[in-house]
């Protein structure tokens, strides 16, 4: 998921940075004092998630957790993912500082979409629905991120269909895994700490 430096052309980098800047501004505006600890915890989770690899043939892919961040944080997923990626770039040399904007948008954009599609279900009293929506959020976020990544690579001369095929296939196991993780995480949080999800009604 992390595009290295020197792969993309400047216009793509600038466009990604601009979209990310807008998203981060929106996220910071929507963040209030009560949600900051929640954002911090999920940023930490995102930061560490990339270290969990999913072995796959000759290569390996890693967890992203952008679906989880999207469904729980909403617009605050933008600043969260930006901070997580910046630290990954600085400390692990994953991705790079020039590709920070593009990489953030690739992961945070689908997260926001998942928030609008599935976020409302968190207040549902029907646990089955919550689980289904959580799974979809984890699954869809990775799928869309792979497609966005393929889209960015068009400008480097790769054919979209081919890049998309490779990326989606490579991330297929991650999609299922993330779907399961988001579903389990939400079920767990709903039970022990519903206030972390911003849900005020008592669990059960």
């Amino acid at each position, binding site marked *: 998921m992390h595009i290295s430096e020197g792969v993309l052309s400047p216009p793509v980098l600038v466009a990604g940075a601009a979209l990310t800047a807008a998203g981060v501004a929106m996220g910071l505006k929507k963040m209030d004092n009560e949600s900051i600890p929640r954002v911090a915890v999920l940023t930490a989770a995102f930061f560490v998630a990339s*270290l969990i690899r999913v072995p796959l043939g000759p*290569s390996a892919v890693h967890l992203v957790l952008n679906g989880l961040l999207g469904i729980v944080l909403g617009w605050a997923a933008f600043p969260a993912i930006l901070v997580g990626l910046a630290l990954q770039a600085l400390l692990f040399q994953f991705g790079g500082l020039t590709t920070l904007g593009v990489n953030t948008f690739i992961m945070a954009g689908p997260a926001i979409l998942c928030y609008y599609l599935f976020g409302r279900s968190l207040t549902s009293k029907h646990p089955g629905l919550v689980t289904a929506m959580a799974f979809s959020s984890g699954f869809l976020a990775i799928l869309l991120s792979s497609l966005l990544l393929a889209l960015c690579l068009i400008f480097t001369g790769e054919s979209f269909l081919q890049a998309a095929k490779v990326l989606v296939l490579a991330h297929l196991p991650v999609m299922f895994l993330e779907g399961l993780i988001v579903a389990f995480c939400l079920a767990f949080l709903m039970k022990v700490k519903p206030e972390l999800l911003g849900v005020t009604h008592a669990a059960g």
Partner: protein
Amino acid sequence: MLLDSRHPFTRGATLVINALLMITFLSLASQVWAHKVNVFAWVEGDMVFVEGYYPGGKKAQNSPVEVYNSAGVKLLEGRTNEKGEFSFKIPAKEDLRIVLTAGVAHKNDFIITAAELGLSESLSDAPVTKISEKVAAPSSATVDMGQLEVMIDQALDRKLKPVIQLIRNTRKEGPGVTEIIGGIGYILGLFGLLMYFKSRKDRERGQRSAEYGQAVII
């Protein structure tokens, strides 16, 4: 149903999350991560060896390698073998930029300087040859300079091999615990700072509205 703590499914979910956390911590050392590719290159004799690998040491197999000179002209290209290695004869004694592309969106480069490549050439530079000729002249068994050079090169390659191996291995290590814990610390600190500023602003606003309220009452 799912939220009922007595339900076995929920207990199962908790178990899975705990297991995942355990796996994370256990698997932190020596792993493969597909978000970065490393390149390392070294000179042996008149050959340059290139090695591509992911953090944790897994080889970047069958990856395209391109070699550019300092002016950015592509000199040659090839692919790494199943050991993640690629070698080529030194094409020119100048700075070489070796670019390795691994899969989609992953790319890295390594620069081999002219000094590294030209190590053997400096030996046969004119002044050195003259001095050695003077020294060699009185002795009956004259040593061929070319032969001497090859011998020194071979000996150096042999002696340097463990050092290069050490450098290769050190570079293969993935992110350490220090970086991970440090990163989490940064995140908590950053958001703590944000919270501090936000709450200060809120308090100021609260004070101002309180004063305004008093003024209205008076």
